[in-house]
């Protein structure tokens, strides 16, 4: 177990390193002089040279990377070029709504996917199977931003049941927050449910085909007990992994969902920063987002190893 943990941990560090190099390279490839961008329109030659030396832009590219990495490791992401706020604070403030949206969507998605996936597998090739898998591929294929607009049109404009835009943190006013979160969470959560329902179905079908299930069936165990007592636990182990590994997909989906529903999260922060050419913010937001994904993936893998003793030996 310890060796497995250490090797996964090492891999994660390697990925984080590569991610940091990719982001650093992307930011250096952006056309334009970052020093002039930080200083704005009005500066002296002296100030220019000073900042250039301070940021290490007169050194070699490897040294520049190390200086940059060292600042990042200290948790210093620099200041926004636009309004000189600390990027740390901007990203942290934007991270909370995004995380709330992603977690709420996961809950919505699982609540839809688990029953529909189980029903589809239990009654394979029936109308239930066709219906729930048809629904899954339908919601999975709907582009999230468009689904959001259609939901706004139906439930905000036409019926007036939910607000179209806005965000309130759940710890400030829980019910108000849930009310505002309902449409965005359904938008992103149904996409997620489409993905998970299909995996639950195929995983359950695979387990139901195994010998120990056949043996139980031969002993006369009823079909419902067979699924719930014998098959489900084993079938859900890979599903737990999939749910965790989709954290990144959901974070990506949140970018568009936030834009549609006016949620002040990471996606909106990143897109606005790109349109404003505020690259310190772009870099900080992407870095934190991808680091979060990599760390969640590590946690999922370790949980999987814990849940499923069969794969520990690697």
């Amino acid at each position: 177990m310890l060796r497995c943990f250490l090797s996964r941990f090492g891999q994660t560090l390697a990925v984080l390193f590569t991610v940091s190099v990719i982001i650093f390279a992307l930011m250096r490839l952006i056309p334009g002089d970052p020093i002039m961008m930080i200083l704005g329109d009005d500066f002296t030659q002296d100030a220019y040279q000073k900042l250039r030396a301070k940021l290490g832009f007169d050194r070699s590219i490897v040294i520049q990377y190390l200086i940059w990495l060292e600042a990042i490791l200290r948790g210093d992401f620099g200041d926004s070029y636009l309004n000189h706020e600390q990027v740390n604070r901007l990203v942290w403030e934007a991270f909370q709504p995004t995380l709330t949206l992603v977690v709420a969507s996961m809950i919505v998605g699982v609540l839809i996917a688990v029953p529909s996936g189980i029903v589809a597998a239990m009654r394979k090739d029936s109308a239930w199977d066709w219906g729930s898998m048809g629904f899954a591929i339908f919601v999975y294929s709907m582009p999230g931003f468009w689904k959001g607009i259609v939901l706004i049109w139906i439930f905000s404009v036409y019926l007036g049941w939910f607000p179209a835009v806005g965000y309130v943190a759940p710890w400030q006013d829980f019910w108000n927050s849930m009310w505002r979160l309902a449409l965005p969470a359904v938008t992103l959560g149904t996409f997620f449910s489409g993905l998970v329902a299909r995996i639950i179905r195929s995983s359950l079908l695979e387990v139901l085909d195994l010998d120990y299930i056949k043996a139980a069936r031969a002993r006369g165990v009823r079909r419902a007990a067979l699924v719930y007592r014998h098959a489900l636990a084993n079938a859900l182990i890979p599903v737990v992994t999939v749910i965790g590994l989709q954290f990144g997909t959901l974070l990506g989906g949140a970018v568009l969902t936030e834009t549609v529903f006016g949620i002040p999260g990471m996606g909106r922060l990143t897109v606005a920063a790109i349109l404003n050419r505020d690259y310190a913010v772009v870099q900080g937001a992407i870095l934190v987002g991808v680091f979060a994904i990599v760390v969640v993936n590590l946690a999922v893998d370790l949980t999987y190893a814990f849940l499923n003793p069969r794969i520990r030996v690697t």
Partner: protein
Amino acid sequence: MAQPLTVDDALPAPAPSSGEVAEARGPSSTRRWWRRFARNRGAVFGLAVFLAVVVMAIFANVLAPYDPLAQGVGPANQGPTWSHWAGTDSFGRDMLSRIIYGARIALIVGIVSVLLAMAIGVTLGLVAGYYGGWMDVLIMRVMDGLFAFPIIILAIAMMAVMGFGVKNVIIAVAVGFIAPFARVTRADVLAVKEEPYIEAARLAGVTRPAIIARHVLPNVLAPIIVQAALRVSGAIITESGLSFLGLGPPPPTPVWGSMIAEGRNFIVMAPHISTIPGIALMVTIVGLNLLGDGLRDTLDPRLRR
């Protein structure tokens, strides 16, 4: 499987065969594949949708009733009527014509970006898998890094670096799909590499690049084609997402994503501006996903029963 057993099902999954043998059985195995594919109703529906979108894109200039860029061909923000089946937008442009032309951008970006990602990813996967050693480590660690990025975020960052335009959208979308192709290819190369016919070719003095091109690549192609088919829909969704955010091809190019975005401001008085292009986008994606699933189920020897 509930379907009746056929001779096909009784046979073990065919092992990767060398070029000549595959050629000799070519026509019959294609026909057998088609019979499997045609049984899959979803896949056939997906293929029909895909062909319809292709026809729409190729013959857009014939099919579109109006010039997609001409303003004021009808009253602004009008819902569907007999003269404008999909209504008009805020500039009085004909929505149906814009949707038909929009199929061009969607298909071009979807297909070209996947082909580009495939060319790069497969090459990297072949090199990493076949040569192994430090090249494998280097290539695959970079792929791991790329894989950690959500595709839309990588595409957004690429657009920030490169600026707007169709060509840049294609590159930005392609970058996100390189890693999956490299991984799939490498995994299969590792298996194929150990086959006796590869060893035979090596002992016969065939050079490594020739072995890779002539013996390894043909035998890892099926999962790569499946992967490509499954990724086209993702590429189109990513392009629409970029366009929706205002990072896609610049206006007034007819693009489904930007049309949906433009309609947001008129959602109360003219909801058709957002909703109708979205239906075109959704039907295309559903079709491509069903087609991709069908190809995966019928083409991937590992899934074939």
